[in-house]
């Protein structure tokens, strides 16, 4: 593969977990809950799945356990924010901190620096080669041969769009987000809707985490999510919670990440600086989108 096709392949590869995260965050965003615990859910998913693959050897079982743990964390988050009116930002940060330190704690207890399951899970076997497409010269290399959850991410964009705009649940979620009192007045259980929105988010983030650890590299290292949850939040902000648009911004990050990975090979001594690219690009994109959004809004004074 040439450098260009490498970049395209890596763009898909690196944006998949962020797209999954974005899809999870969108529901909470639309239900007007600022869910910044995405990062924590994702890290927990990555860790628990790797841990249980190591203990039991079954990818599927480990995935189910990880989703279960994610749901528990999601329930904690929803209880604190939706039922007890806690500050969602503080709750989210707390969950991120707990996830990060819990993983570090468990790694220390087990006495390892990382959870390596490459002897149990063959990453090469997990990759799906799509029957007809893989034979097409260039396209086959780019689209075929990704881990299963990467495909799930891209299919998920459409599924989430369907749920959001074509089902009763999606309408309820959006109504709760736009005007909670109005939703209450017509008899919608707003608290339950918020719970559902947050729990969908938790499951998606756990899948993103599984994609990061077991699915792609069969390895869990400490703090391997490295801010992807927050990048997903930035993408949601830029795309204003629309599944398609937000996923596009996630692709922008994937592209930045793949640029940094691929250009590193040619950069020589300053290759370390390319790690900065994705974050800086995200700040610039967020700034540009905000400026464009506010350009035609004329308000007296300052309003945040």
């Amino acid at each position, binding site marked *: 593969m040439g450098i260009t096709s490498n970049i395209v392949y890596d763009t898909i590869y690196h944006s998949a977990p962020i797209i999954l995260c974005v899809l999870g965050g969108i529901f909470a965003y639309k239900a007007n809950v600022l869910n*910044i615990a995405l990062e924590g859910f994702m890290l927990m998913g990555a860790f628990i799945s790797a841990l249980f693959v190591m203990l039991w050897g079954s990818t599927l079982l480990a995935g189910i356990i990880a989703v279960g743990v994610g749901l528990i964390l999601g329930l*904690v988050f929803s209880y*604190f*924010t939706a039922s*007890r*009116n*806690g*500050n969602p*930002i*503080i*709750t989210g*940060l*707390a*969950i*991120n*901190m*707990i*996830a*990060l*330190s*819990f993983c*570090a*704690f468990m790694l*220390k*207890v087990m006495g390892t620096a990382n959870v390596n399951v490459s002897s149990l899970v063959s990453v090469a076997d997990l990759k799906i080669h799509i029957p007809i497409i893989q034979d097409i010269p260039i396209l086959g290399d780019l689209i075929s041969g990704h881990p299963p959850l990467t495909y799930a991410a891209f299919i998920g964009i459409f599924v989430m769009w369907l749920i959001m705009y074509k089902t009763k649940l999606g309408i309820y979620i959006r109504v709760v987000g736009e005007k909670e009192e109005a939703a209450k007045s017509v008899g919608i259980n707003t608290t339950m809707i918020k719970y559902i929105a947050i729990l969908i988010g938790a499951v998606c983030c756990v899948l993103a985490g599984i994609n990061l650890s077991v699915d792609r590299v069969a390895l869990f290292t400490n703090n391997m999510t*490295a*801010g992807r949850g*927050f*990048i997903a*939040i*930035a993408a949601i*902000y830029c795309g204003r919670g629309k599944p398609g648009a937000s996923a596009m911004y996630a692709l922008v990050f994937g592209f930045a990440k793949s640029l940094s990975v691929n250009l590193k090979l040619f950069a020589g*001594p*300053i290759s*370390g*600086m390319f*790690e*900065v690219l994705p*974050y*800086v690009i*995200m*700040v610039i994109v*967020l*700034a540009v989108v*905000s*400026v464009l959004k*506010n350009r035609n809004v004329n308000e*007296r*004074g*300052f*309003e*945040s």
Partner: protein
Amino acid sequence: MNKQKKWVLNIGNSILPVLLAFVLGAILMLAIGENPWDVYSIMIGKSLFTVKGILKTLHGAAPLILTGLAIAITFKAGIYNMGVEGQMLLGGFMAGIAGYLITGLPPVIHVALCLLIGIASGMLFAVIPAVLKAYFKVNEMVVTLMLNYAMIEVLQFLTEGPFRDPASGFVSTPRIAETAMFNKLWGSEITPFFFVAMGVFAIMYVVFNRSRLGFEVTAIGKNNRFAEATGMDVKKKIMTIMLISGAISGLAGAGHMMSDQYIYSLNFSGLPGLGWDGMLIALLGMHSPVGVMIAAVFYSALITGSQSIAIYSGVPKEIVAVIQGLIVLFLAIQFIERRTGVISRWTRMMRTKKIDGVEE
């Protein structure tokens, strides 16, 4: 609500989460087969019940007081500034570079110069999110978080590359010169930096409680549209608040470098990092300077104690970070007043009784 009752409430709302977090931490320790009582008594005993331990605790509290104040001032204004960690790291790194590149200065001047460089770099790094927030209405939380990650990567690159100490076995910058170090006092861990931090605390106490700026911060935090309507230039105030926060963060990093670390290594600020600890401290201290100071000392005692538990028991010191996360989680809701309303119900009961009594 009268002042005394509010005070009791605040204390209760700060202590209950801590107790709950300790209980959950104890359950976690039981789960891995250790005795939580022993661990906690080692932790507290080593940090609070010897003179040396207390001085070490105060030494550790110095940068935490500063990061706590840096976050408290922005949180109080309703700005979710998460950039303290990055600003603190940059301040520490720059002070470290100045500490070993510049030589031959008298100690006092060298120390002052390094501190100033740390403050300036922290402040400069805070300009980016401040401008984006104040003039372009960009969500400050996401920006500051992204910039933190970017800064960590940049500093890692600089430490591994241009500024790496070739003589050192692991990745770090060279040790700063003797003249740039804060000297240890009375044969213990504590250094003059603690008094620098206390000086900043005193200034911030006045700023928060007695100055116009402190009042404006509170007003903006309560309702920024109303603040604007009364004639405040909210944009300028946000810039000021963010720059003050950046300066204090930079000072925290520089002080941590010059009184404790002396080199910039990849775990300069520990887990989860002084900036994140500062957030916990600001929340625990209810955004007030005195509260921040008490919380910083308490938290420093936890960290000081955690260094001993890894030696005397089988529990990794990361347990403290877990407990810390749990404390923040429980701080997100107000235990006593909001829902259960125990105290207000109780006082209402008392009042009605009194009225009944009068009527009789």
